[in-house]
Structure formats: C-alpha cells, structure tokens
C-alpha cells in the first residue's frame, strides 16, 4: 500500500458478514469511504472497539485497552481506571490510518465517549438513548423520538438524531463544556420523567426498562468513560446496518433501521450531523 496508508492489511478474504457474504475487505472499504463524514466526530474522543474477528454472527469482544502490538503511530490516551485499578491506554482515532487500522482488526462497532480527552470529565454531548423493549415496534420508537424533539424544540434546544443500527434511536445535544456528567445525566432523566408521565409506554427508570412493550429513555449512558456507538459505525447485525445520522424530517412512520446499511449509507448525499460540534449550546432553559 506504500504511501497511501501505514496499515498492512491482513486476512482480507475473511467473511465478516456471512449472510451477505461480505469480506473484511468490504468492511475496510466502507470505513475508508465513510471516513470524511466520520473522522471529525471521532476526533479527540476515546474509542472502545467491538471486534468481531470471527464474523458478525459470532461472539465479538470489547476492547477498551489498546491491544498488544498497537502501531506506534496510533494515538492513545492514558488514564487510571477506578474499576480496573490500573492505567488504561485508550485508543484515540484522529486520522484515517487509525480508522483503517481498526477496520482491519474487524472492529465493526466503533464506540466513542461523550467527552473529549482534553476535558475528559466534562461532556460536550448529551445523549438520549431511546431503547425499546419488545413487543414495541420501531414506529413507536419514532413516535417517541418525535415527541422528544417537540419538547426540545419548545425549549430552544438544537437536537440531532441517528439510528442506533439496532432497534433504537439516539438523540444527541451538543453542549458547551460547562457541565459535569451528573448534570447532563439529570437533564436527560428529567426529560424522561416528564415524558413518562404522559405516556403508557415511555419509562424513565432503570428498574422498568425491561418491562415488555416499553421504551426507556436511558439517561444512564451519560457517565464519564461510557460510550455511544459512533455515527456511521457499522453494527454487528445480519444486514450490516449502520448507526446513521438522519434529518429530523426523514423520521417518519414506516422507516426501518435496516434501510441504513453498508450498501446504502454511502449513497446518502448530505451528512445530517455536519456542523454538530459547532453548535454547542447552554443547558440553561431560556
């Protein structure tokens, strides 16, 4: 590959999405092509990889710590972990080569923190994880997201939405770096509580989150070091779905998360999340 990339590819023939017959080379190609839309968001954020070296249908594994044999040119962020009681060397993806390197490790799912390494304790994203419990339909999830959007609009918050690539939706608010995670967490929790009051299916508390047919507004993701699946990351799902940023106006009943996959996402003209990080807002209610 010479000058184009520092990554040396391995096992390109390995089938990663067996239902679709997609090889690892196809996964790498996807990440190369999506990179212009993805890298800006990933910049200076800690990455957690979900690797699926034996294919998306087999068990994968989380990799929080930079793996052994990590090339010297991959940026890392070293930090003491309370839970692991040791220093963890986190990966930071600040360039194309790192993204390609992760793809070559069959890191189908790329997760990022809600804060950046220069200010790890201070979130710059507020994350509403809309997580349905069967038999809730995706249409119910859409309804709920639109309701949330209405509320956020009323309060003059600018919100962004993406599919999770699985069954849920993710709503994100970019915020100025003036709050701690406890505050952003409580912010989301308050919204959940408010919405749960007027609904049969929306639940705001973790203890109800596995009740059948409910939708949980998971506020507990707003914790230092916790990660969200990155926009445009592939998912280890049968149809090779992608966690896809959407325009709010695209969100209509009948939409299915499977529509956004390795084949279709690159054909989307615009990036609905373009400029997200330049729109940081205050959480004060005006």
């Amino acid at each position: 590959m010479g000058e184009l990339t520092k990554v040396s590819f391995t096992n390109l023939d390995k089938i990663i999405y067996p239902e679709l017959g997609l090889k690892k080379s196809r996964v790498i190609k996807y990440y190369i092509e999506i990179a212009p839309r993805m890298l800006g968001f990933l910049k200076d954020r800690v990455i957690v990889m979900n690797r699926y070296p034996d294919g998306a249908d087999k068990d994968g594994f989380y990799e929080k710590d930079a793996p052994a044999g990590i090339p010297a040119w991959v940026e890392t962020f070293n930090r003491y972990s309370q839970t692991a009681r040791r220093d963890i060397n986190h990966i930071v993806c600040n360039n194309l080569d790192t993204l390609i390197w992760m793809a070559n490790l069959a890191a189908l799912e790329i997760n990022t923190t809600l804060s950046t390494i220069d200010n790890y304790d201070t979130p710059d994203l507020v994350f509403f994880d809309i997580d349905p419990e069967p038999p809730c339909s995706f249409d119910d999830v859409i309804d709920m997201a639109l309701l949330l959007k209405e509320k956020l609009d009323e309060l003059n918050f600018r919100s962004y939405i993406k599919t999770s690539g699985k069954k849920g939706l993710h709503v994100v608010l970019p915020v100025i770096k003036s709050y701690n995670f406890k505050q952003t967490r409580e912010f989301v929790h308050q919204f959940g509580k408010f919405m749960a009051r007027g609904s049969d299916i929306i639940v705001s508390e973790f203890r109800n989150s596995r009740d059948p047919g409910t939708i949980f507004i998971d506020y507990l993701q707003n914790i230092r070091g916790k990660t969200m699946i990155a926009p445009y990351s592939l998912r280890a799902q049968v149809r090779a779905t992608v966690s896809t940023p959407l325009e709010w106006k695209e969100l209509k009943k009948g939409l299915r998360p499977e529509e956004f996959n390795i084949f279709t996402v690159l054909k989307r003209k615009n990036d609905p999340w373009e400029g997200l990080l330049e729109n940081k807002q205050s959480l004060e209610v005006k």
Partner: protein
Amino acid sequence: MENDQDTAKPSSRPIWSGSITIGLVNVPVKLYTMIRDQAFSFRLLHNADGQPLKYERVCIRDNKVVDWKDTVKGYEIRKNEFIVFKKEELDAIRPGSDQRIRLDKFISLLSIDPVYFEKSYILVPDKSLDAYSLLMTVFRQEGKAGMGKVTMRTKEYPVVVYEYRGALILTTLRYSNEVINPGDMEDLTKLKKPSEKEMELAVKIIKELSGEFNITEYRDGYREKMEKLIETKMKGEVIVAEVPKKEEVKELMVALQETIKQLGK
C-alpha cells in the same frame, strides 16, 4: 480504424521464448498472447450456501471418487471399447519443443485463406534488437510472410510470421485435414448461375454499401448487458465472489485515494 481504447490489454509475461530460425540465421524472440478472449465465465456454486463446487472423477461402475494417480488414458475404438495408453507411451511419440520457430519459405500473406488462421501471438525481440528489426522491416517492405512450423507445449503447428503495426506477429495455422472442403457439401453442388439482370442489381447494392473494414463498428451487446447486470448486482446484492487478494487491495487503494483527496479539501 485505430482505436486504442478498444483493444485488449497487453499481458505482462511471455508464454514462450526461443528463436526464429531461417537457415543458419537466428532471431531470439519472446512470444506474448495477442488474443484475449472477452467471454464471461461463471463459476458453478452450490445453491444452498453459495460455495464453489469442484469437479471429481467418479467411476461409473461403483460411483467412487478416483484419484488422479489411478487413471490412464483410453482411446475409444468402438462405443465403450478402449485401447489403453500409458503416459510413457504417449510421451515417447510427442514432439519435443526445440525452442525454434523454423521458417523455410516466404509467401504473400494475402495468399493464405483466412480459414486456416487459428491464433495470433506477438513476437518481441529477446535481446537481439537489430536482427528483429531487420526481419520485420524486410517483411513489411516486401509484403512477405515467413511460413514454417513451431512446437509449443508438445504440439506442433504450422505458422506464419509477418509484420503488423510495428511488430512481428506469429499466427498458428490449421492443418489441411482440420478444415472441411466446402465443395464436398451436397447442397452446394446444385447451385445454378444467376441471370445477368440479377447480377446487375446485386453489384449495384454492393457498390452502394461498400466501405472500409472497421472492426470497432461491431460491439458485443451481450457483454455490455452482462457488465451492466453485474454492476447492478454488485451495488445492492449479495456477493460471494472469489476475488483474488491482489484485486481487493487494488480496490481499497482506489477508495483510499478518493478519501485522501476529499479529506485534503
């Protein structure tokens, strides 16, 4: 007539090397493929899981798979009656290649009936540029072609060597017993002479539609449709194609170049 976009890509490796010999004169050459078959080929897959199938030799008596080393060649003399040949017996009568294209006669290229042409190869000088150039130039100037024979891969062919677009070309020819004499076809013995009037009209039509030979006017419609179909399928559908690794890396390189360009904006 020159349309370089429409020609096949040259191959990178010679398939044979040796010398053209005319009496005592030697011109060392390498032989390259000139004809590239553009037909699509499909691989046979198992419908259930899309995996490629392989062929095996199965004995028709007990349906058991037979190993290569347990096979011999049989020549069928009557239906299901064979005489058996061992490999050594066949090897003994096979012509050995002596790495020579022996030319023994010079003829006019146009005097060869096209029905005898089989396959063409490009001859490229192997070190001795001057001798090659001399032979090529004299062929071009005199409008002559060299007739002779060559042995390639244990088969002996009659060949003709001539100049074409600044190169010496070798074309293998068919043996006379490989070509059917059309005069022997019964339907052709009953032809009658056309009338003068009919001939006049026919000549007129031919004159009106006269033109130059231009092969690029003809396109392989099936191939073009097939290419489109493949393209469409690749976009949305499942691919379980066995692309060699090298090709895949090339594909990634193209994608990389594009992305690096975009990121540089």
